[in-house]
């Protein structure tokens, strides 16, 4: 009986510890293959990465309408798409929030925002919130740069757009542009991971 209790305790501890380490490990690391998805765009159509036949990769941006950090980056996200879509790295934006918690992020509001700002990239809704946890996004904005390889879409960069969330004109380091430029030139990305302030994704 005592042995049984011991085993149970040990099993419980192992379970608890592994549960915690799993929790810490969640989301993609550099070099992982990112999942594709099929999510609704603001024009009502469903969008998947596999639809972009000629793309060399993607700039995936988890963003939303209601977070001031995300809003501060809207124009810069649009500029990224203008610059890199034609070079093979389109922006694909995904809104990950639970819209019951944040009604300002519901599809009709996303449509309105996309129209107002003239977004030229798809602005998709993570309906059911199934995609962002696989990527490991925790906040808006949160960027993943993927490169199309024979294995699938490989994660090449995770983190911030640049080093100044307040003032686009005062940016010193453009992390996303540097990473995509390196990929396009076939060079190694110098800064592969960065951190930025953001709004927690609302569940």
């Amino acid at each position, binding site marked *: 009986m005592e042995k049984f209790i011991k085993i149970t305790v040990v099993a419980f501890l192992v379970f608890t510890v592994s549960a915690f380490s799993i929790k810490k490990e969640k989301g993609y690391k550099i070099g992982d293959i990112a999942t594709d998805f099929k999510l609704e765009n603001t024009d009502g159509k469903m969008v998947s990465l596999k639809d972009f036949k000629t793309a060399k990769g993607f700039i995936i941006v988890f963003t939303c309408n209601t977070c*001031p950090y995300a809003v501060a980056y809207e124009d810069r996200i649009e500029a990224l798409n203008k610059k890199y879509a034609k070079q093979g790295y389109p922006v694909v934006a995904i809104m990950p929030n639970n819209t019951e918690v944040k009604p300002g992020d519901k599809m009709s509001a996303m449509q309105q925002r996309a129209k107002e700002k003239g977004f030229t990239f798809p602005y998709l809704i993570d309906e059911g919130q199934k995609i962002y946890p696989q990527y490991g996004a925790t906040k808006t904005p949160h960027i993943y740069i993927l490169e199309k390889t024979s294995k699938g879409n490989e994660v090449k960069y995770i983190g*911030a757009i640049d*080093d100044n*969330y307040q003032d686009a004109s005062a940016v010193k380091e453009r992390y996303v542009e540097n990473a995509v430029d390196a990929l396009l030139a076939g060079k190694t990305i110098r800064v592969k991971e960065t951190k930025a302030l953001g709004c927690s994704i609302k569940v």
Partner: protein
Amino acid sequence: MKPLFLLLLITFSSCKEDAKPTAKEYNPNTAPVKNKTVDLEIYDYKGLEPFLNKKDDKTYVINFWATWCAPCVKELPYFEELNKTYSKNNVEVVLVSLDFPKQYEKRLKPFILKHQLNSKVIALNDVDANAWINKISPDWTGAIPATLIYNKDKRAFYEQSFNYDELKTEIEKFIK
């Protein structure tokens, strides 16, 4: 006579208004900026660092928040309550606002007044977040709300929202 008096009054009050430091005049050094109504100290990361590394007998609860962050605002009363109830246990709450500088006068200061926040509120203005997020904690991805609890023996970081019971449970681990 009366219109002249009014004119003088207007002139006088507008002068007073001009004398107030505004967010625009903010100079990103570590010196606190004072305001007549709310004393708001504004720091860059270097200026904030001493608040995160005190070696005295207190336990510090450092909460990162912003007025526009709904889950942050929701949990503020719990931090206020903690600050009040546990002050006898040498616990001090510091609320670090991440509001944008242009919001200090319009939103942050009125918010502090309206909610009569008793905990110390300071503002962190340092745009190169990638340079300091890991220094606060490698466990922080950068999302708010986030909270650091520490004393000279121990520290823990939480990228999460709290209710009062959860906060109490955590603080009890530090003060026993």
